């Protein structure tokens, strides 16, 4: 690429010798402006810098740099003195970070946009292809009188901008892509950490684009061609997945969801991918930058709650994932599986301190009364109808009915629904001391807070729950 040394360059060498000694090194360094500047113009391009009054004055002190131009404004002639725009552009059109800045004439000719931003936010833009680099000047003298820096000259009048605060060019990465480019997704597979930017994922051989769909709980189906990397392929770079592994996703807003290995490995209808493109365009921050979706030739359709939005971290801990299904019965039946319970814990998390035989432990789960919403009415269940219809029958619970909590070994305790009603101190827990339940309690355990204000008489701790049955 041919670079032109401007007329100012020779004179700049003296300044360069001083500046080069004091400037920081590196492409991100900005030029040395003195501490108290009368004014300054922020510059953004291939790098960021500031065009300050001291540099302007220094350039103006050399008659070879200063330009005088007379223009007609609203029927009146005005004379301006200033320096060509290229002196500011030369600071940001390449990697030079100190004098002498070389102006890249070839890049200018090739074309990029330059925007002049005034203090009040007003902006005027042109393409460098349409104007010469010396057509416009930065001036602070109008008819010999000092003014705030402004753009004037031999170009369209809509480019004459007063109170100039910034010059932005399309050579700068735009803030949206900058943020997206710096986004990374973090993996933790059995303690091995890895991190990938979207660019790295897109360049990988795991990238594919295929059709996929999801259906919301309200029944609306959303389809599109998603682009992303195969989840299984990415994780298996670190460990071979098995059916009983668990893959835990954490979203940027704190939402968590786990997939059993069996789900990730199930490729009958298509592949689970970490998607970051939809119909060719990058997903925005929400629901992206990354979301999970299943794609395939036959446009697989998944439940909306399985498509995790805004994925930030993925954690795989092998062999500890055990799926389960607890039968719920009453006026309706329902199979309570692990992902439903986990989703429930995410939204209604409750931690209690449970004491048994003088030993306390912390249990985390969700209030037990919430499961009654699945079985106390044949028509409505949580998240299955219009949001204005409550799934839980308050009045019925208050009037009372027995609920059996049955363990895998046949142990059963019965609690009256009116004692559970809105009682957040009695919970169904799936974690103990922040870890999964041990084999003697898995999959769910009925526990309560030792400081609970309201406890049914004779309530007992029920472990290894296999079913919950409401009697009407």
């Amino acid at each position: 690429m041919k670079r032109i040394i401007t007329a100012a360059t020779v004179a700049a060498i003296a300044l360069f010798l001083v500046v080069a000694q004091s400037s920081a090194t590196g492409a991100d360094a900005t030029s040395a402006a003195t501490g108290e500047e009368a004014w300054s113009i922020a510059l953004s391009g291939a790098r960021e810098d500031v065009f300050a009054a001291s540099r302007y004055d220094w350039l103006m002190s050399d008659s070879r740099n200063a330009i005088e131009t007379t223009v007609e404004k609203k029927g009146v002639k005005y004379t301006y003195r200033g320096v060509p725009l290229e002196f500011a552009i030369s600071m940001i059109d390449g990697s030079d970070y100190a004098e002498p800045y070389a102006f890249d004439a070839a890049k200018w000719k090739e074309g990029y946009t330059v925007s002049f931003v005034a203090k009040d936010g007003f902006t005027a833009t042109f393409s460098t292809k349409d104007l010469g680099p010396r057509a416009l000047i930065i001036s602070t003298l109008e008819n010999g009188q000092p003014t705030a820096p402004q753009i004037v000259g031999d170009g369209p009048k809509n480019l004459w901008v007063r109170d100039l605060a910034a010059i932005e060019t399309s050579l700068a990465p735009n803030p949206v892509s900058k943020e997206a480019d710096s986004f990374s997704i973090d993996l933790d597979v059995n303690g091995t950490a890895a991190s990938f930017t979207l660019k790295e994922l897109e360049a990988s051989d795991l990238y594919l684009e295929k059709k996929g769909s999801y259906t919301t709980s309200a029944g609306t189906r959303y389809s599109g061609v998603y682009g992303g990397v195969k989840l299984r392929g990415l994780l298996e770079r670190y460990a071979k997945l098995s059916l009983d592994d668990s893959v835990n996703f954490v979203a940027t807003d704190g939402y968590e969801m786990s997939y059993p290995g069996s789900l990730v490995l199930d490729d009958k209808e298509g592949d689970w991918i970490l998607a970051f493109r939809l119909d060719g365009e990058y997903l925005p921050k929400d629901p992206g930058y990354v979301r999970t979706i299943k794609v395939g030739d036959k446009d697989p359709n998944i439940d909306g709650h399985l498509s995790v939005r805004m994925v930030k971290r993925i954690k795989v801990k092998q062999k500890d994932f055990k799926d389960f299904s607890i039968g719920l019965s009453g006026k309706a039946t329902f199979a309570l599986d692990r992902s439903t319970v986990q989703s429930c814990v995410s939204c209604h998390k409750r931690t209690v301190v449970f004491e048994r035989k003088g030993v306390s432990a912390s249990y985390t789960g969700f209030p037990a009364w919430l499961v009654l919403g699945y079985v106390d009415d044949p028509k409505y269940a949580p998240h299955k109808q219009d949001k204005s219809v409550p799934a839980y029958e308050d009045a019925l619970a208050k009037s009372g009915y027995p609920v059996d909590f049955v363990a895998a070994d046949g142990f059963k305790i019965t609690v009256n629904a009116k004692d559970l009603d809105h009682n957040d101190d009695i919970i169904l827990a799936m974690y103990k001391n922040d870890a999964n339940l041990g084999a003697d309690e898995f999959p769910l355990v009925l526990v309560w807070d030792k400081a609970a204000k309201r406890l049914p008489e004779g309530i007992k701790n029920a472990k290894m729950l296999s079913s919950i049955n409401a009697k009407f």
Partner: protein
Amino acid sequence: MLATALFAAIVLSPCLGVEFRLNGASLVVLGASELASRSGPLVLEGGEHVRGLALGELLPLLSEAWRMELRSARETRVVSRVEAPASKGPAAGAAGSSLVEDSDLANRLFSIYVVEGKTGGWDLCYGIERFRDLSSVALTGEILDEDGLEVWLSWEGVGELKAEIARFAKEHGKRITCVEVPNTQTKLLTLARAGGKLPDLAQIQSDYVPALAGARIIQGIGRLRTDRLASKGFEAFESGGVSWAVPLYYDAQLVFYNKKLVGVPPVDWSLDDLAALAREADSRAARSSSGKLKAPFCFNAYSAYWLVPFIAGFGKERFVEPDGRILLDDGSAKKALDAIIALRDDGVLVPAERDAMVSWFASGKAAFILAGSYSIPEFSKLGIDFGTAPYPLAARGGRPIAPLLDFKGFAISRRTERPVLARRLIEHLTGQSFQRRFTAALGKLPANLAASESSREANPYWPSLSRSARIGIVVPPAESYALFKNVMWKLLRLVLSGEMGTAEAIDTAQRLVDAGLAERK
């Protein structure tokens, strides 16, 4: 010769018409009947109702104009060198010729009016000044040569906007492309990220501002700010001390009541009054053959959008703090939630989402509902016998529950190479004439104050709309508001189902909104 004779006739007989000249050349002579046929109702700055049209609609688009000479049939007299702010202009009733020098004239042409005079001639109204019996208007300026504008439109009224923009483009010989985009924010961000070509103008709503301004996609519009547009409209698009869009129209939240079930609510009513009237309506219905109401009072209490007004009514002075945070733990949010829960527990309020609420209202099963002013044309079409009232006071003698004013506006791309054409189109679309027609057709509130005033008599809902505009607050153009909305719709469900107390919900919301803000920083 003929032309000279015709010109003399026009000059001597002002009622024959007005000549429009640019840079010394005659552009057109419009007869009184043609001017009259193109005129519509206008409200002048002093409040006078007249018929006329904007000068900008009669002239080519100008990039700049700095001199305007006005002539009447009488002797020539020149008022020279008025270094004119907006209020300066020709002396009222001055005879002869009047010269206006105003460096910003080109930007004002859509708010300078040619109006029917009282003596059969045509007058020119410039701010509060009026030049009577106009025979010619001569402008000195530069014709705008920008062309090829792209405009993104969204929300209701896209068809009407497209038609008006096409008319504007045809009249001024410009190429303007309109594209309907369902979500302009998402599309702009996606395109900016991909480095694609952005439109010159895009319709946006207030809560798009932080993301679009932060991404350097839109530019400040301070130079377009005018007193003739609602100041709350500019507030709705203000972030970091900069106005980022020009308000076009807005919707206000209102109380709708079924006239068959309740009478006209009293002026300065309170929430207690509303509850009492709703209870009475329910009792009356219970005694009648139709039976008890499904919902004496109903609104979508699951949505934060409808909660914000209650929070303001129960004491919050400023919804978003100067540092961008939302403080929910100052007592106002708890009082608001407690009041809503109390109404629900009392059986007066039945929270429901829009479809259910509208269905009950239409079938006479709900006495009072809260809905946006955009529902007025919809309910009228459905043949519902309804009335509207402004939101009540939170308590007798207290603060009003402040309806949210949901502004839509036009933002100009930071990268546009046609900034002046973009501004001229905005000036036209925010001008009185289009604002009045557009908002009347769609049941919107015009951002243009004069257009709002001119609809006073024709609009039966004007009293409640104007009161709502006065007491209302704008949808906050802040990132924290988007977070608040997202967090609250989940928590409100828990609160209303009794699964979470109001204090816990507010603590949780505060924590989650703060965490979300920290994450984004």
